[in-house]
Each structure stands twice: as structure tokens, then as C-alpha cells.
């Protein structure tokens, strides 16, 4: 009898926790989706990429012209990330980093998108030329 009551209260409690889990997960994903959509709508195509190594800017390249840039890092400049700009998109063709995450990343072209190579501390980020004097969004 006592066991029954206890079991029922445990079950009730676990159902409450399960419901809270669902609410938590759904709210979390909705918030992030809304934020992602908002970012996507606010930000359009960029027109240049800025390359930084360990936070220091080393170059800016227009997305309008096709170029290939050797980004050299390491003590003897022995490490390489080969940045390619083609058809308005930037991507890393090959890299000497151990994980290869940067070269697997999809091509980027929208403002704010970036490709990161953590081992080489290289960050390639898309910017839009007119971002400073662009008007705020009118609601």
C-alpha cells in the first residue's frame, strides 16, 4: 500500500520532469531559431573577407575577384591555409592543420560568416563594405 503510493508519486514526479524537459528544449530551440532567422534576414551578402592570425588583421580581399591566397603561419612559416575566392565565395582549399576542419567548411559569402582554423589561429570573416553607414532596420 505504502509502496503503491510512493511509486505513484515517483511516476508523477518523473512525468513532471519529462514535461519540463520538453518545454526547456522547445523554448531553447525556438529562441535560437528566431535569433538565427533574425541574423539571416538582417545580414545580406558580404563583399570582402578579412583574414586575421591570432587576432591580428593580415589582409582584406574582395569577394568580387577570384584570387588564391597562401596564409602562412608557424615559426618558419611552414604551416599553410590556402584561401580561395571564386564566384563570390571564399573557402579554404587545403590546409596543413591536423584536423582539417577549415578545409571541410562550406564556402562562405554572407556577412558575418567565418571559417576558423583553431590550430593555426586563422580566422576568415566576411564583411560588407557599407556596414558602417548602412541605416538601422526600420520596423
Amino acid at each position: 500500500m505504502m509502496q503503491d503510493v510512493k511509486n505513484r508519486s515517483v511516476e508523477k514526479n518523473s512525468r513532471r520532469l519529462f514535461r519540463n524537459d520538453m518545454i526547456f528544449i522547445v523554448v531553447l530551440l525556438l529562441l535560437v531559431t528566431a535569433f538565427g532567422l533574425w541574423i539571416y534576414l538582417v545580414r545580406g551578402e558580404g563583399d570582402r573577407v578579412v583574414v586575421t592570425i591570432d587576432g591580428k588583421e593580415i589582409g582584406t580581399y574582395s569577394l568580387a575577384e577570384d584570387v588564391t591566397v597562401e596564409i602562412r603561419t608557424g615559426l618558419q612559416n611552414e604551416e599553410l591555409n590556402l584561401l580561395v575566392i571564386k564566384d563570390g565565395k571564399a573557402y579554404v582549399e587545403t590546409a596543413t592543420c591536423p584536423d582539417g576542419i577549415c578545409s571541410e567548411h562550406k564556402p562562405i559569402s554572407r556577412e558575418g560568416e567565418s571559417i576558423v582554423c583553431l590550430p593555426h589561429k586563422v580566422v576568415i570573416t566576411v564583411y560588407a563594405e557599407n556596414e558602417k553607414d548602412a541605416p538601422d532596420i526600420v520596423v
Partner: protein
Amino acid sequence: MRPATKKLAMMGLCTAVALVLAYIEALLPPIFHAVPGIKIGFPNIIIVFVLYRFGFKEATVVSLVRILVISFMFGNMMALVYSLAGAILSMLLMVVLKKMNFLSVVGVSVAGGVFHNVGQVLTAMWLLGTAELGYYLIVLTFTGTVSGIFVGLCGAGLVKRISKRLK
């Protein structure tokens, strides 16, 4: 066996299993190709289990030891920094949420998974001085949620099936 010895043996066993899970995960092909570098984090199943079966201190120790060992064996010093930041932030949040008794193991694990990513991205933003990296969190929240659900279900299963007498 003396309780302290028994506990030491249990913690050693849990750490060993976490390491093996990390090794197995490293052998598997990447799961999600659009954003590389994402994994489920199998060892976190053990961390969640230890957190619920033994407690906060024990889970923190097992987590720190496996991060140190994994980083020294497979990774580098940078991997160590990112892993530590993610693990510490997610552990703090999981402990608080567990105390609040508001979410089940799965919900706590999802929060842990998502904040593991938050910790790592914040570290990357700080180390690389690039605030734009924050946008990775949009995708990473989804993958962190999926990982968290998987890890939480496995962890809850372990907590339920492995006898309390092990303590």
C-alpha cells in the same frame, strides 16, 4: 572493502570507461558534414552517470582527469584549453539545474551539452579576438541539444540499471 578504497576503484573504472568511449568516438566517421568538428561526446555519458550516482565532486574529478588524459594522448594544448572551458561551464550549469530539481537527467544533459559549446566558443572568441564566432552558436545549439538528448538518455539508463550498492 573499505568505502574509500571502493570509491577510488569505482572512480578509476568510470574514468577508464570514459577514456575508452573517447577513443571509440575518435574512430567513428564525423556525423555532421555541414559544420565540421562536431561530435556527440560519448564520454559525457559517464560524466552524467557519475554526477547522478555519486555527486558533483566525483563528476568534476572524473571529467578533469579524462580531459587531461585525452588531450595529452590525442590532442594538443589548445584542445586542452577549449575542452576545459566547455567542461567547467557545462558542469557548473548541470550542478545548478540538478539541484533545482526542475529537469530530468535528459534536460540537465541537454543544458550541459549546449553550454559545453558555449564555453568553447566563448574561449575561441576570447583567444582569437573575433566576436563574429558567436554565430557558430546557432548551429551548435541544435547539435548540442541532439547530443545532450542522446547522452542524457544513455546516462539515465545507466543510473537506473547500475545498482546503488556500487556506491
